[in-house]
């Protein structure tokens, strides 16, 4: 029982990271039909930027984090949209998706060549140690990650549902043409989505890099997990991405322990196939109408 509890908590913590990545992924898809294959690298890079600022510019850690976060949101939020997405989006979904694939390679190799090919320790911003609950030793780090992720999602939810800008963003996501007619500044809303995606990636990066160690290859598993989580949860619902992320994290950890360690990576995919065969729009998704 205690083992199960520990696994559940560990799974939820991992899942929280996936959820953060999946939410940004879903938001970006909803508002601008962009499938961001570089989402995993988005979670990898901010930590590398922080370490680079500390090592090469000699900045203290808090300043480096703030600066890296800002830099990242500007370059990979606004910059990504203006330079990569805007020129390509009118040519269809697939060429843009492939461009993000190339971007992923670019980011990965840039981190490897520009910074280091080896893993680097990253300081933890959340407390370490463990607390005992029901006889199970639960790590404070996992609890903190869950807490931060929930806070971020809550903040996003409040923003989307209860502020004017948030509701304008929702309108843009649901139907950009009508939103435009109604006077919503659609372009600005889309830009904001990309910025939010970048910000979520920064948070995920700061949470995950202390455990995973900052390495240029961190993006690969996270990217795939985020993709699966977004689809399982429902590609057109932010809440779905949260549920999907937590589910994928849970399934991954539980299957590693109870099913088979060597087939561990296949289980989330099996989940994906089952979900789309039974409920194609995802667990929390809304059924989409086919445009003729």
């Amino acid at each position, binding site marked *: 029982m205690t083992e199960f509890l520990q696994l559940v908590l560990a799974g939820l913590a991992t899942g929280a990271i996936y959820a953060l990545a999946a939410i940004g992924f879903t938001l970006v898809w909803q508002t601008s039909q962009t499938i961001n*294959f570089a989402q995993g690298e988005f979670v990898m890079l901010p930590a590398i930027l922080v370490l680079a600022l500390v090592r090469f510019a000699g900045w203290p850690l808090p300043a480096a984090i703030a600066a890296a976060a800002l830099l990242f949101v500007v370059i990979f939020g606004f910059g990504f949209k203006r330079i*990569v997405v805007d*020129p*390509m989006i009118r*040519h*269809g979904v*697939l*060429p843009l998706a*492939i*461009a993000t*694939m*190339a*971007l992923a*390679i*670019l980011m990965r*190799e*840039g981190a*490897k*060549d520009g910074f280091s090919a080896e893993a680097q320790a990253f300081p933890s911003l959340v407390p370490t140690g463990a607390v005992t609950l029901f006889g199970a030793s639960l790590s404070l780090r996992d609890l903190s990650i869950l807490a931060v992720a929930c806070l971020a999602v809550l903040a996003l939810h409040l923003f989307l549902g209860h502020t004017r800008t948030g509701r304008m963003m929702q309108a843009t996501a649901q139907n950009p043409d009508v939103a435009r007619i109604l006077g919503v500044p659609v372009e600005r809303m889309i830009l904001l989505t990309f910025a939010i995606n970048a910000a979520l990636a920064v948070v995920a990066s700061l949470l995950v890099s202390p455990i995973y160690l900052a390495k240029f290859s961190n993006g*690969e598993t996270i990217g*795939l997990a985020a993709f699966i989580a977004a*689809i399982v949860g429902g590609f057109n619902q932010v809440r779905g991405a949260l549920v999907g992320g937590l589910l994928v994290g849970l399934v991954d950890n539980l299957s590693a322990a109870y099913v088979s360690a*060597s*087939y561990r*990576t*296949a289980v989330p*995919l*099996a989940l*994906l*196939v089952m979900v*789309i*065969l039974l409920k*194609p729009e995802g667990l929390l998704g809304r059924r989409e109408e086919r445009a*003729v």
Partner: protein
Amino acid sequence: MRRLDLNLFVLLLGAAILWVAPAGFGNYGLYVLSLWLVTAVAAMGLNLTLGYAGQVSLAQAAFLGLGAYATALMTAKLGLPWWLAFCASGLLCFAIGIGLGVPALRVQHHYLAFVTLAFATVVYLVARNEQWLTGGVYGLANIPRPAVLGDKLNGNLPFYRFVLAVALGLALVQWWILRSPWGRAFQALRENPLRAASLGVDVRLYTLLAFALGAAYGGFAGALYAPLVEFIDPAPFALSQSLMLLLMVIAGGAGYFLSPFLGALVGVALPEWLRFTGGAYLLFFAGAVMVLLVVSPQGLMGLADRAVQLVRERRRRPEPAAAPQPSEVR
């Protein structure tokens, strides 16, 4: 129709040039060329699936792996002739393609992508874990080269020419398919599936066929890959390689007949040529691909197409405001 004949001409001319040109190349150069051709065959399959039937397949490298393992097991372990293994590889992948496609396409048009994603992972894991069958992480070594007319193709130049001949044969088969009524059905699928259905084209059947054929080509490529590298382990057939093949097809220009060769050039030869930049060659590669896509989302063949059209327009310039030419059947 004219475009396809131009493709045939380029294909045959290219093959002739490629037959004689590399005679002076060292082992390494011949290896890269052979690898390029093998990758082009796999890309041909993906081009059929993606460029003509409009389906995204994320498992092309897995089909390559299936073909490679099937060939390795049949030739190295069972001592069967390579031709048999070659046909078996293609047939196996075709059957699996049908098997995957039937349930997936029943659900929704674009969920085949996810099924192929899952399939690719499972194939990789089985190859890695089931040591009794595939050699697991240790792989399968000493895969024999095929023998043509009693002559074992151990030398790199004869084997390269062999690969060239087989690749040419497969390309000709694809050319023939695209000229046939099947080809027209595939093109109708790409343009607008709903409209095609309303015209009586059995969308599901032809999509399935395109996917299964594409998978078969992956298997054929694998049958060539195994004797080329003479050793296989699961690593070259992982998901990331499937994504790379997808990237190659788009960079070449999905839906154009010659794009697999260009795309494979970008994916295989370009990184090799860029090695002189030191460790940063992948960086330049990714940057080049991104710039290419922003400039020409139809890939390299799209660029060539636009260049040709520009030249044609210049030639017609003396005539005032001629009516726009109808788009040619590609």
